[in-house]
């Protein structure tokens, strides 16, 4: 059942929320030991929340648009009193003293949190292999990765553990795992969703967004979590974009550009699905053409300088003082604080996090700052300019979401650069702050899901969801 169907049943009293939650907990019990989508399952809390929703319905009150809908939260979203680890040893056991704004809004809408999902440590990765607590497996083929970094969230929706999930997307961390797990994943315009309570990775790029089985479910989730929040100084003024009402409008008259620079290096079977998606949009009345957006060819390089530079600054807070792990290298505790910092961070961070902190620290260090960080920021301007030029001619852009279907465990984990290439199609939207969505579109030669990405200019969520729904209707079954 979709989230919208569940909410309709629960709000009308046709089905108790308790029964909904019990059926999802049963699905978790059956397959979670194999898939490891969660760092923590909140069974008792979910049942208690369901009882409260049922009490409201019985009293004649409306619990909200997501009444009784089981939701999984990426484990970098703060939940008061409930462990929030970012899949890192350095935060193992930490219980935040506050809830993220998106969590508050989900609960206010009647949604029921069923667990905290596994991820690449601090959202750094594209396979969920960088979790300190072991990888998540792809529900379509447990020998393959689910993508990442929101791999647990994507797998939890694909496996039916939750009707909806939240992820965070810094360079593709919602869209790429959504593509690899065959679900819908959407990154909103920067500032549409409050980042209050999202553990920071790269603050000028991070954005929380929905994962769902259908475009309509992703739309209602965005409407619930979006809108201004005074607790986030980068939150855009105004309400959440209204996207649920445009889903049946079709693509007649829309102009869609297929980004030439994002078609090279794509696996042939994925490229074939992209061509089919373009043809389907054309058949729906859109004008589809190839467009060159030259600067996006440099997105990957610019991203891995900017994101690591911001991360090296953001992750300085894990110093063994205020929360999480502390390792004192002296037996009697008489060492100095610098030794404690170094030992704590060496023990608490995994290899990929250390690698990115090192890269970002180097890019920001004296003598290299302008050559790397300054230059990457100027390239970011070029990317925004070139995308702007494309959007003067097109309403939407189109690409594959990821260059391949789900890959095998270990296939890229020893070669950081090969792993980074997983994000090549998704990174431009983060650098520009634009919205983008991945829609499942058939399968590759290996029978595993392929995702097609639609991109829109800032605050273009309505046209993005309109086209995504049309794409979903045309997708091969």
């Amino acid at each position: 059942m979709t989230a919208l169907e569940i909410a309709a049943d629960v709000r009308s009293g046709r089905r108790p929320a308790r029964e909904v939650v019990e059926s999802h907990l049963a699905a978790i019990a059956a397959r979670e030991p194999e898939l490891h989508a969660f760092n923590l399952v909140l069974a008792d809390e979910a049942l208690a929340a369901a009882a409260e929703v049922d009490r409201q319905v019985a009293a004649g009150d409306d619990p909200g648009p997501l009444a009784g809908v089981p939701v999984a939260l990426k484990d970098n979203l703060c939940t008061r009193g409930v462990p929030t680890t970012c899949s890192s040893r350095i935060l193992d056991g930490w219980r935040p003293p506050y809830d993220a704004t998106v969590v508050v809004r989900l609960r206010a809408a009647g949604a029921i949190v069923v667990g905290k999902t596994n991820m690449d440590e601090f959202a750094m990765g594209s396979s969920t292999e960088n979790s300190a607590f072991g990888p998540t497996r792809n529900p379509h083929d447990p020998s393959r990765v689910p993508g990442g970094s929101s791999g647990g969230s994507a797998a939890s929706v694909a496996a039916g553990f939750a009707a909806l999930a939240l992820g965070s997307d810094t360079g593709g961390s919602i869209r790429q795992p959504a593509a690899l797990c065959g679900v819908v994943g959407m990154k909103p315009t920067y500032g549409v969703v409050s980042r209050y309570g999202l553990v920071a990775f790269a603050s000028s790029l991070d954005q929380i967004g929905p994962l769902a089985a259908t475009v309509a479910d992703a739309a209602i989730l965005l409407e619930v979590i979006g809108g201004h929040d005074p607790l986030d100084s980068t939150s855009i003024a105004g309400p959440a974009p209204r996207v649920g009402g445009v889903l049946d409008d079709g693509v007649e008259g829309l102009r869609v550009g297929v980004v030439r620079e994002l078609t090279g290096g794509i696996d042939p079977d994925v490229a074939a699905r992209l061509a089919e998606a373009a043809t389907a949009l054309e058949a729906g009345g859109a004008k589809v053409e190839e467009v060159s957006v030259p600067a996006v060819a440099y997105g990957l390089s610019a991203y891995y300088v900017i994101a690591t530079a911001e991360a090296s600054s953001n992750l300085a807070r894990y110093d063994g003082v205020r929360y999480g792990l502390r390792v004192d290298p002296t037996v009697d505790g008489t060492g100095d604080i610098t030794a404690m910092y170094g030992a704590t961070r060496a023990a608490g961070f995994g290899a990929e996090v250390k690698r990115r902190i090192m890269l970002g620290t180097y890019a920001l260090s004296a003598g290299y700052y302008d050559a790397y960080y300054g230059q990457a920021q100027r390239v970011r301007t070029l990317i925004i300019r070139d995308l702007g030029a494309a959007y003067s001619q097109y309403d939407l852009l189109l690409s594959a979401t990821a260059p391949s279907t789900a890959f095998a465990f270990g296939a890229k984990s020893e070669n950081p650069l090969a792993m980074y290439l997983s994000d090549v199609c998704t990174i431009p939207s983060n650098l520009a702050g634009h919205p983008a969505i991945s829609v499942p579109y058939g399968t590759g030669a290996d029978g595993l899901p392929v995702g097609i990405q639609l991109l829109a200019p800032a605050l273009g969520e309505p046209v993005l969801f309109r086209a995504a729904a049309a794409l979903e209707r045309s997708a091969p079954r």
Partner: protein
Amino acid sequence: MATPFGGDPARSYDGPVEPAESATTPILSRDEVVYVAVLARLALTDDEIDVFTGQLAAVLDHAADVAALDTAGVPPTAHPLPLVNVLRDDIVRPGLDRDEVLAAAPAAESGRFRVPRILGDEL
């Protein structure tokens, strides 16, 4: 046409601009990695330093296409939104509970975070 996959050696932006020669290609030494680890407050093992020296050099080499671009006159973008200071009325509001926050710390004493020695012997 340049592609992000490194297939095209020209690596030009929007035209046949010759990239600068290897002057901008990083040569990352082991000593530099050791120094950066100090800056980053990471007590890395010798093995980690060896592995990172090669891996970071590979990533920086990939970023050389960006370093070689002619961006004269292009302003940097630090943030996708035009950010302005956010102000609010100066009214006292409840913050996080001190005891709840300190309870999450590795060590606390007298309502404060307790840390190892900060000042060295030479001071």
